[in-house]
C-alpha cells in the first residue's frame, strides 16, 4: 500500500479540517470529491508532508513521514501539485520544472531528459523556453503538472489539476492520469465529477472533514439510482445522494 491512513485528524484553531479519516490505497487513481471546506486540501497537504497531522497514523510509501530520513525518502518519490501553484515569473518553463527536479534530489545526469519528457507529456514542448509570466492560466497549470511528474513519482497528489484547462486539455490530462495510475498511486482532489468518472479507479467523498463514501465511480453512481437526487449526470446524482444521506444522519441522531 502506498497510502495507509488511520483516524487521521488535522485541527486549525477550533476547526477540525480533517476529523478522523481512514484510507488505504495502492496503485491507481483515486478521486477525492467533496464540497468546499470538506477537508480535501488539508488531507492532501498532510499526504504531501507539508503539514503534520494533529493525530492519527500516516504511512506513505511504506514509511512514517514523521522522521527526517523517511520523510526525505518519501519526498524524493512524491509529486505534488498544490491548489495555488506559485511560480517564478522570470523562470522559463524548462527552468521551473528543472528547479523542482533538482529540489527532489533527482540525479543531475537524469534531470535534462526527465524535464524534457515531463514537458512533452503536458504538451508544452513548444513553450519550453517561454517565460512563465507570458503563459496563460491553463498553461501554468500544465507547468505545475509537469513539475509534479518530472521525478516519475510513486505517489502523485494533485489538487484541482484541471482548473483552467480547456476541454481538449482535460481529455488529454485524463489519459495522462490513467497512464500514471498504472504504476503509481494518484490522488486527485477535484470538484468536477466528470473527471472522476473518466479517469479514476476509486472515489473517496469527503464532507465536514470525514470520508462519507469510499468505492468505485460505478458504486457512487449506483447510490443515486432510483432516488430523487439532484444532478445532471448519473455520477452527480450519486454524489448529491451520498452527501444528503451523510448530512441527514447527524440531524436524525440529534433529533433522537
Amino acid at each position, binding site marked *: 500500500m502506498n497510502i495507509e491512513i488511520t483516524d487521521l485528524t488535522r485541527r486549525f484553531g477550533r476547526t477540525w479540517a480533517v476529523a478522523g479519516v481512514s484510507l488505504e490505497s495502492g496503485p491507481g487513481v483515486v478521486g477525492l470529491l467533496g464540497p468546499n471546506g470538506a477537508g480535501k486540501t488539508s488531507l492532501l*497537504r498532510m499526504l*504531501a*508532508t*507539508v*503539514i*503534520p*497531522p*494533529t*493525530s*492519527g497514523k500516516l504511512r506513505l510509501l511504506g514509511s*512514517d*513521514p*514523521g*522522521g*527526517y530520513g523517511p*520523510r*526525505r525518502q518519501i*519526498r*524524493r518519490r*512524491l509529486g*505534488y501539485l*498544490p491548489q*495555488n*501553484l*506559485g*511560480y*517564478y*515569473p522570470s*523562470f*522559463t518553463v*524548462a*527552468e521551473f520544472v*528543472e*528547479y*523542482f527536479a*533538482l*529540489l*527532489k*534530489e533527482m*540525479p*543531475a*545526469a*537524469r*534531470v*535534462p*531528459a526527465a*524535464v*524534457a*519528457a515531463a514537458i*512533452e507529456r503536458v504538451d508544452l*514542448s*513548444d513553450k*519550453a*523556453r517561454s517565460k512563465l509570466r507570458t503563459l496563460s492560466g491553463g498553461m501554468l497549470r500544465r507547468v505545475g503538472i509537469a*513539475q509534479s511528474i518530472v521525478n516519475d513519482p510513486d505517489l502523485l497528489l494533485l489538487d484541482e489539476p484541471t482548473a483552467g484547462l480547456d476541454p481538449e486539455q482535460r481529455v488529454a490530462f485524463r489519459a495522462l492520469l490513467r497512464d500514471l495510475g498504472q504504476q503509481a498511486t494518484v490522488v486527485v482532489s477535484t470538484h468536477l465529477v466528470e473527471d472522476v468518472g473518466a479517469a479514476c479507479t476509486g472515489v473517496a467523498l469527503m464532507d465536514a472533514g470525514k470520508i462519507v463514501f469510499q468505492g468505485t465511480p460505478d458504486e457512487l453512481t449506483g447510490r443515486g439510482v432510483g432516488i430523487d437526487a439532484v444532478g445532471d449526470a448519473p455520477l452527480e446524482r450519486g454524489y448529491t445522494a451520498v452527501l444528503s444521506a451523510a448530512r441527514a444522519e447527524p440531524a436524525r441522531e440529534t433529533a433522537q
Partner: protein
Amino acid sequence: MNISEDAQQPAGFEARLEAELVRVVAQRAAAAQPAGFDPWPLLARGPQPWPRRPGLTERFATRLLRSPGLARALVATPSLLLGWVVATVIVLFAGLAATLSTGTPYVALFAPAVAAAGIAYAYGPGIDPAWELSQSMAVSDRMVLLVRALAVFALNAAFGLAASAASGAAAAVTFGWLVPMTAVCMLALAAATVARSANVGVVAGLAAWVITILAGKAADGRLTAVISNPAFIPGYLAVAVICAAITLQATRAPRGTT
C-alpha cells in the same frame, strides 16, 4: 529516412529528436558515472532542447554544498538577483559619499539596515512564490533558508567592509557594525519567518535599528555610539541568539503529529 521525408516532419519532431538524443547522452553519462562526475559539460556539448548550463556561481555552489538543488535554490534567491545587488551597492556608495563628505561613518549605519532587508527577502512564504511546493521537496526548506541567509549576509558584509574601508573609517568602526548587523539581520529574519511576510521582517529590522541608533545618540551624544560603544555588544549578541532560536522554532520540520 531520406532528406525529403525529414523536411516534411511536423515542427515538434525536431524538439522530440533533440530530447531523445539528450536522453541517450544522459543514459550514457549515468552508466559511466564515477563519483563526483559532473555531467553538465557533456550534456552541454550534445544537442538538447534547453541548453541551460549552470553558471559559474551555481556550479561553484553545487561543489561547495554537494547538492545541485540547494545550489539552484541559492542562485534563485530574490535578494541575490542582479537588481537587488545593484541597489545594495548604490545605497552603500551613497553611504560612502556621505562618510567622505561629513566624516561621520554612515556606511557603518547603512550596512546593517541594507543587510536586514536582504535577509528578510531571502526566503519565505511571503517571498517565495512556490513556498508550499518547496515545502514538499526532498531538499529541506530550512536548509534553503539557512544557505540563502548565509549567502546574503556574507555578500552584504563583504560590500559593507569594502565600502567602509574605502571611506577610510577607523578599523574599530569598520568592524564595529558587524555584530549589530548580525543582530538586526536575525531580528528581520525571525520577524519575517514568524509573520510569514518579508515586509514585516524589513520593517522590524529597520525600525529596531533606527530606534537603537537614536537611543545610542540620546545616551551618548554621538550618532555612532551604537557601533563604537562596546557596552552595546552583549545586547546585540543576546538579540541575535534569541532571534535565531525563534527562527529555528518557526521553521521546525513537522515531526509526526502536532
